[in-house]
């Protein structure tokens, strides 16, 4: 068993670190320190995370975000009245904030969708949202295929918290339509807002109804991954419990309530009692925070990159490679390039032609190099086989 080299001196207690002595130093290579190096690098680099919140207005979205990240992101917000909202169309708003905790910096971007589900006629009101998500993918695809890839800004939406009304009887037609439109493009975590409207039994029934509806409509929400098999039983049990409480029934609050005698808690004070936001018997806020921020932040990013973005990329490239590509511009581009070219995704007209051509050149050169290398490898493989058989 390879043991940790004396890194204990530098990084403090690492899980399962055994006490080391200089005698052991001679025996071990020490690449088990790799995770720590990665950790150090990523801490330096910082994390960025884009979270989208969607749902009808008045479900406590902003309050919940403020509670989750303990910041007031919505200070300057003006909520327009009903007559103004009659003619309003859905807009996409982005808010950024840098949060630092324990030396780790997170650049959090919040994407808000005010006006969703507001008007009398909400047909296709989810299209701007879908377009936005795809635009981020497109931007990333362009950056990835570009020249300077050192500082790609990842503005892709890593997670979408979709708020379901506690007053309905499950998912409404609008909810279903929205979820269907985005579930293959972003990690969706359904959440029941203002859950203090419900009695415990009502919450259970509503959750079950939503789960059944999600299954019936074949909507793929974000699946929290299984625990590793070597985790302890308690952790596994906790994890299962958390997964079972999806959709999370949450209550948000930034106000601290001081009930005489008891310790101050964040909550909402009513005449009949106080709802404690961080009390697991009152709502699932803690579960949501744990799963979203503490344990699965990185996984959300990975799924976005490995699954959703790749899916988008494949679809995009496939549609261009198809012979019946309708776009005249892309067809002309394809004809200009040689057959060995990797077809680029359709760039918006704002980009200059020169930039496009430069990138084309770069790609052609890279492709040629790749082919040469492949040929060389094949040759050396063939030679190796010959020498083996001898």
């Amino acid at each position, binding site marked *: 068993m390879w043991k940790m080299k004396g890194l204990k001196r530098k990084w403090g207690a690492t899980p399962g670190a055994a006490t080391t002595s200089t005698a052991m130093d001679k025996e071990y290579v020490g690449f088990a320190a790799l995770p720590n190096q990665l950790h150090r690098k990523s801490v330096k680099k910082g994390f960025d995370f884009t979270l989208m919140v969607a749902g*009808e*207005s*008045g*479900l406590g979205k902003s309050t919940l975000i403020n509670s989750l990240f303990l910041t007031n992101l919505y200070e300057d917000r003006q*909520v327009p*009245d*009903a*007559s103004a*909202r*009659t003619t309003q169309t859905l807009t996409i708003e982005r808010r950024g904030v840098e949060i630092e905790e324990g030396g780790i910096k997170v650049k959090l971007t919040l994407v808000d969708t005010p006006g969703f589900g*507001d*008007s*009398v*006629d*909400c*047909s296709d009101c989810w299209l701007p949202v879908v377009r936005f998500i795809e635009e981020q993918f497109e931007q990333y695809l362009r950056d990835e295929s570009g020249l300077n890839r050192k500082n790609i800004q990842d503005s892709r939406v890593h997670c979408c918290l979709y708020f379901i*009304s*506690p*007053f*309905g*009887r499950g998912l*409404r*037609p*609008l909810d279903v*339509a929205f979820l269907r439109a985005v579930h293959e493009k972003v990690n969706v975590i359904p959440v029941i807002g*203002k859950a*203090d*409207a419900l*009695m*415990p039994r*009502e919450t259970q*029934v509503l959750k079950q109804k939503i789960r059944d509806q999600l299954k019936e409509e074949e909507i793929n929400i974000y699946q929290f991954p299984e625990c590793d098999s070597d985790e302890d039983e308690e952790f596994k049990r906790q994890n299962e419990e958390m997964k079972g409480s999806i959709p999370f029934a949450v209550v948000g609050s930034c106000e601290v309530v001081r009930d005489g005698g008891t310790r101050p808690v964040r909550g*909402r*004070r*009513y*005449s*009949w*009692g*106080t*709802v*404690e936001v961080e*009390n697991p*018997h*009152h709502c699932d806020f803690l579960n949501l925070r744990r799963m979203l921020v503490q344990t699965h932040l990185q996984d959300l990013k990975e799924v976005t990159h490995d699954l959703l973005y790749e899916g988008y990329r494949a679809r995009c490239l496939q549609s261009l490679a198809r012979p019946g590509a309708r776009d005249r511009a892309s067809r002309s581009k394809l004809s200009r390039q040689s057959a060995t070219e990797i077809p680029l995704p359709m760039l918006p007209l704002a980009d200059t032609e020169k930039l496009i051509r430069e990138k084309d050149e770069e790609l052609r050169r890279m492709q040629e190099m790749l082919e040469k290398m492949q040929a060389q490898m094949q040759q050396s493989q063939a030679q190796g086989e010959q020498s083996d058989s001898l």
Partner: protein
Amino acid sequence: MSELVPEPRPKPAVPMKPVSINSNLLGYIGIDTIIEQMRKKTMKTGFDFNIMVVGQSGLGKSTLVNTLFKSQVSRKASSWNREEKIPKTVEIKAIGHVIEEGGVKMKLTVIDTPGFGDQINNENCWEPIEKYINEQYEKFLKEEVNIARKKRIPDTRVHCCLYFISPTGHSLRPLDLEFMKHLSKVVNIIPVIAKADTMTLEEKSEFKQRVRKELEVNGIEFYPQKEFDEDLEDKTENDKIRQESMPFAVVGSDKEYQVNGKRVLGRKTPWGIIEVENLNHCEFALLRDFVIRTHLQDLKEVTHNIHYETYRAKRLNDNGGLPPNKKLCTSLKRSGEGFILKCWEQVSHRQLVLTSDPSTNWGCKSSSRTGG
């Protein structure tokens, strides 16, 4: 010599008002027993009350009506374990019950509107509701102009419409405004904030203020309407209700829990029990007192004297009153009074039938009410 004959004074067009004699009564006559006589009559005949509930599904409409009348008068559209789909268009479901209290019988009809505001596109989803209300007026009108009228015309007109506002905490939704704009001229609308146990006291009062302001800015007159206050007493009482209490923030429940030794209707949560009839918790008691204990008769009167009259006037006006019919004129010349009366009634009845479909929107298109 011709005497100047004074021109005969023209008969007054309006009969002179009877002079009221404010004399001090010398003894007890017993006029005030009329109240008791009316009460006895009402108890014998009973009375009708039709209440309509409108709002998105899941806002607790049926529960609230059941709580109001302390009986299962409204079947809950989805009592949590039943599978019921949201209807694609707004349906109108009227269910009647007879409730009795203290010897007084009330025929209560609850009109539910499932499907309102639940679709993705809710354009004009209030039209079926408006059509229903106008149909009831039409029914009543037909009965009224009948030759052989029933002694007591069955009253299916909607006396009161409870509109359920979702407790978003921000303001009204565009759909709420649209509905109330169209229907406040046709029926008595009482806006109600549903499931008010999601708002703290401060949030509640802020929200109510904002809603009141929005309704005012948009010219929506909910019941009790300012223009129908009869006297100062009414006005002050109603002003207080209009400016402070309405819209009522209510919570409904049909389950009882034990609180301080008493059994109360409420909702039990891990952080406390919400008592429906506790004024510190919600305004259900105010709504109940308002609708049932103080303004029930007024709701019916306003419906009959104002909303129905508006509808009737519009219907008759749009025919140009009762037009002269050539055939009728000749028959009038020939026959006696009885025949005239008969023809008159028949013509008027037929005219009403022949005119345009009562389902056209009478109340909403014209923004001004025909004078009283």
